[in-house]
């Protein structure tokens, strides 16, 4: 499941996808790779936090609703560890309150599923530039 596609592995060049949905973990990395990034997928927030990818991640694409630790929980956990990884949230639930909370806490973008490839690319570019 943790399908790393290696590219130019410099410091903090990895895009991490964290989503409990298998079809997202399957489809999104291919698209992101088509954009020209190196990408790795995780099925849970806990799995990502425990991995050695945390220090190499330059942008996190993060689902909100997951069993166990939610996307918002992970955002907080990273902040607690003073890890400033730009986050792009992706969610299937149109919940304005959650969106506002995520953006207030510094998320780069908040995309509702299904989102277009251009919207994702735009968000990725602005995340990586920062």
């Amino acid at each position, binding site marked *: 499941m943790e399908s790393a596609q290696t590219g130019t592995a410099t410091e903090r060049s990895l895009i991490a996808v964290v989503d409990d949905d298998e*079809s*997202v973990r399957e489809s*999104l990395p*291919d698209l992101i790779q088509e954009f020209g990034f190196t990408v790795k997928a995780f099925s849970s927030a806990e799995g990502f936090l425990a991995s050695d990818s945390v220090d190499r991640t330059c942008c996190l694409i993060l689902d909100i*609703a997951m069993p166990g630790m939610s996307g918002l929980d992970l955002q907080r956990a990273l902040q607690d560890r003073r890890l400033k990884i730009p986050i792009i949230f992706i969610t299937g639930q149109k919940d304005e309150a959650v969106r506002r909370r995520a953006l207030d806490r510094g998320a780069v973008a908040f995309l509702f599923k*299904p989102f277009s*490839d251009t919207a994702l690319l735009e968000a990725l570019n602005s995340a990586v530039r920062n």
Partner: protein
Amino acid sequence: MAQPAHPAKDVPLETSVPGASLESIEKALRRSQAFLAEGQRLSQTGSFSWRVATDEITWSEQLYRIYELEVGAPVTFELIRTRVHPEDLTLLEKMVEQARDGGNDFEWHYRLLMPDHSIKYLHAVAHVTRDRDGQLEYIATVQDVTARRLSEEARDKARSELAQVARVTSLGTLTASIAHEVNQPLSGIVTNASTCLRMLSTDPPNVEGARETARRTIRDANRASDVIARLRALFSKKDVSIEAVNLNDAVREVIALSCSDLQRNRLIVRLELAGNLPSISGDRVQLQQVILNLLRNASDAMTAVNDRPRELVIRTERDQNDHVRLSVKDVGVGFDPQATDRLFNAFYTTKNDGMGIGLSVSRSIVENHHGRMWASLNDGPGSTFSFSIPCRFEVSAAANSSVTTHTSVKAA
């Protein structure tokens, strides 16, 4: 006017006053008739007499008014037939036939179809008697019960709407998870198709990659349509349809639908589904409503639980050989033992945002399936809600016969 066989005893007849003049007797009679007419008008009840041998029918004024016919017009069955609702004509013929043969008191409900196409509901009660010549005669009252009937219909409609409210409230809270369920595969479709296009646009095109993403697109589209099909089955307002229902399948479908809801509340769902569970006869959608309701209640009961895993166990098993039992066990707040009897009452709720409809509707669904539903407190924390429904006849018969076969083999 026909000689009434039974003068109304409650109408004050003053004719027996000794020495009364003819004039005062007539006055009293008119007064008595006026009383009777007013009573009939107020109660919307007409009366008639029918001499069977001669088919001589006499109506009270009120009955003419109910039928909206000119008072005093000669009453024949032909005339009556012009007013009786076409669908009730056969009933009328049958009643008349039986009345001619029988000589029993009878009572029936029928409808009139008025010239303006409105419908009147009538309730007739007839008493059989013999006239002075020993001939069969019926004395009957006919009450216009349209108003009552319409209010009964309104009540029944309100009742079924109430049941619908329970569906809609669970639907309301489920909307978010439905959106999630549908958006998930849609997201996969959009992402895969985008990737596919990009792979085909490179030089040279990545055909193998494109093929794989196209395959995934199809799979996700099928997944989305499965979700829609499940939703339609669960929430369509169709009438009760009786079919063989496997409770294990019903549970799995409900779980699949409410998956994200359960995840959001951080529930650990454990399924203990019996293998070889016999089917029951019933309405799958209604039974899933019951299961869904029990799940939601269990979930709600555990929202405040933070010191232990929020574990929810759904168990199916055979019950007393010819029943199937489903129980939902939580480790939540439980309920006040003194309130056990009230749990299933309509509008009884312990939730701030609850309507207290779910369990009452659930129990009536289970009872409509000839089953029963009950609640108990666990030895540890939380409560268990269960229902038990008889197996389908064929299945339990088949099960019995297989047991018999088995025994005989053993004996041999």
